[in-house]
């Protein structure tokens, strides 16, 4: 018989890498969703976010879980947060549009200009402005250092300078649109909008789950809001979730 003890070294083996904690938690949350345990899945995604694992995928999947769990407002808020991180993600845009289509009653509609600005994140707008800014400054310094090159560099400096101004203006506009107004989404099945910040104040109108509103001011547990119909009034803080950035 031939001894072959050394042979085994030639065969290859698969090396299983241990899964990272956020990846495993994400998988587990997805599994809960696939089992139809949507509320539990949403909680699992929430835990991931609380641990600092914030990504467009987690927010998007949480939006899906909220939607399947019947929490339309929370799903819209989650999709909007996901969109702020990945503004050109077609899946997020599709599901947000689909969720918005389910909202009954008045809701804030974004304009085409806002949609155009929202195609890029604020950091992407900033990066777009910063690049020509640096080029302009560097070329200007070169021009000061070598005055003989100035006539040749002047048109280039002017072009990049103009580009910097335009893009900086657009960046400021994008920042103003994003931070100049506070937005919120109704998360209650029915949210009464009152004349004043008191439970005793008469109800002006009702907002339904998922309605997006603009927040004008706040007082203790109340927000003064403007609905999509243009009407304004006071809504209790518990009926609303505010959107971040």
């Amino acid at each position, binding site marked *: 018989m*031939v*001894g*072959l*003890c*050394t*042979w085994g070294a*030639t*065969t290859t083996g698969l090396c299983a890498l241990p899964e990272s904690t*956020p990846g495993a938690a994400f998988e587990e949350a*997805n599994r809960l*969703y*696939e*089992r*139809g345990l949507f509320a539990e899945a949403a909680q699992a995604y929430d835990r991931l976010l609380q641990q*600092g*694992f*914030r*990504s*467009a*995928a*987690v927010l998007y*999947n949480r939006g*899906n879980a909220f*939607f*399947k*769990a*019947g929490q*339309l*407002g929370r799903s819209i808020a989650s999709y909007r947060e996901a969109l702020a*991180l*990945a503004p050109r993600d077609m*899946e997020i845009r599709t599901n947000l549009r*689909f*969720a918005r289509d*389910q909202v*009954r*009653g*008045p809701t804030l509609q974004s304009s085409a200009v806002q949609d155009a600005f929202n195609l890029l*994140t*604020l950091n992407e707008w*900033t990066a777009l402005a910063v690049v020509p800014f*640096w080029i302009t400054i*560097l070329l*200007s*310094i070169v021009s*000061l*250092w070598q*005055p003989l090159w100035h006539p040749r560099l002047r048109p280039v400096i002017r072009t990049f300078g103009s580009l910097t101004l335009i893009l900086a203006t657009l*960046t400021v506009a994008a*920042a103003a649109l994003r931070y100049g107004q506070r937005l919120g989404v109704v998360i209650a*099945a*029915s*949210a009464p909008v009152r004349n004043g910040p008191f439970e005793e104040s008469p109800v002006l*109108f*009702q*907002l*339904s*789950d*998922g309605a997006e509103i603009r927040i004008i001011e706040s007082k203790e547990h109340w927000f003064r809001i403007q609905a999509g119909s243009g009407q304004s009034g006071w809504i209790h803080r518990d009926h609303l979730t505010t959107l971040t*950035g």
Partner: protein
Amino acid sequence: MRIGWETMRQSALLPPAIERAFRPVHRLACLWALTGSCWGAMVTANVDRSVAPVGEPITFTLNFSGAEPEQPPEIPVVTNLQITFLGPSRQVIVSNGRISSSVSLNYAVTAREPGEYVIPALQIPVGNQVLRTDPVQLRIVRHDPRTQLAFMRLVLPNREVFVGEVFPVEVHLCLRDRVENIANVQLSPLQVESCTQLRHVRLPHRTERNEFGQFTVIPLQYSLVAARPGSLRIGPVDCSFVAEITPEGGRRDPFAGLGLGLFRSGETRPVSVSAEPQWLQVRPLPEDGVPPEFNGAVGRFTLALQAGPTNVAVGDPITVKVQIRGRGVLDALKLPEQPDWHAFKSYPPTANTEVTDPAGLEGIKTFELILVPQTAEVRELPPLRFAFFDPETRTYQRLASAPVPLQVRAGAPTPMPALAMDRTAGPAPALPTHDILGLKQQLGALAVGSTPWVQQPVFWAVHSLPVLAWICAWIWRRHADTLASDPRRQRMREARRRVRHTLVHLQKLSQTGPPEAFYAALFRLLQEQIAERLDLPASAITEAVIDERLRPAGLPDDVSNELHELFQLCNQARYAPGGLSTDLPTVRRRVEALLPQLQQLQI
């Protein structure tokens, strides 16, 4: 116990000195053994192998026991065989207290042409008797790897395979029985054309006997899937190793097979073998009779389905577990669309594959999916339909599970948002005809901090740097331009710079000397400083300038006198260095006291 003297000598187990000392003893023992057993003389003829390729020598041996011919016998001429006498070898055997001796006469037999040969029976006179041998048959073949110490071969399926079918290819490493052990095995990857290699596994080795001898076969099985039809090349594959070989006629190590190898009497030899490529015919799947639910599965499968719970409300999830068991590419197996399940909303299934054979050809794939009944009219879960192509029968096969009875009651579906109507709300919109898109399966890039760049101080600090650099460059340029447009100022700056340098030089010279150099430097310093004040070239400054230009310009008398004295010291050093003051530090201090007064002079 057997002791082979020649074997010991040939394998160099005894040092030459010991061999020389024991040679007489050995000869005596041989003589005694021969004389003691002459009456039982016999001869046998044999070869080390009966099959060999053309040109490779075969060892033909005549073994004499009990007697020994005086001359090696002549072997009759055999056409196309070349027979050459190599020499004798002796053995003294001590067995169970008996001593016997034998002599082997070795011949090398080499054939020039393939064919069947017979070395005829020999009649050999030994002493007063004639010993006879039996005829020996030889088979000479053309070159064949199987005549070597080791060879490799590829074993492909003996039939055509189909695209998508998983099929085994075996690589056999065949080792002649003389190979005791192998080590340092290096096996190259199997080269395959347009095939996906799933996995490979080593099968238990076996013994194989053929016309060339006995071999140990070590099989390695690869599982492949053809990706396209046509004639595909499989191979080559190479292997190299170090073989431990038993010498011809030597004993095998009884422990070698256990991997212990206690008695390493054999030689080691590096061996390289290669299996030539072979061609495999791959056919496309037939286009006729393709079932509508066929989605590319090739192999042979069975289907089982479980569903639960079966008593649900509309909108409640039902977990369906589908098991597909069989032989095929399980990893690529997918569930086909089920048009009969239109009354259910289905979610993408999760899948788990369990392989049941080492080669990965057979196993079970389990799908788990969620179905949600949409109406209360649902009475059963319709059969799940699955189709595959069976390469053995060359036909498409259809499978269907048994329908699962369900009790679906009306109830709240998966809770859609409870929407409050307001005064402006219109009629309730119809239920959506489609659903949201599915989950993302990749966690994606994590957002590091939510604060945008424009709100971070670091961002503004970094981007203020180029602005500061530009401001510095602008100031520097303005300054350079101003200097360029004012030659007098430029000259004065240059003169001040030279005065500063000369003053430093003067300080060094006041301590180290020599005095001549000190006073020369002092003269240049005075020239530079006065020239700077008068806006004249330094070379134009002499002592006369003091009275002609400086005193009228308002230079105090004591400063003028001091200046005269210093000029005179310089002139003395230049023209009469013999009576020169050597208290240089004092002179330097006088100069340092004078210079500020000169610099304050406004002309």
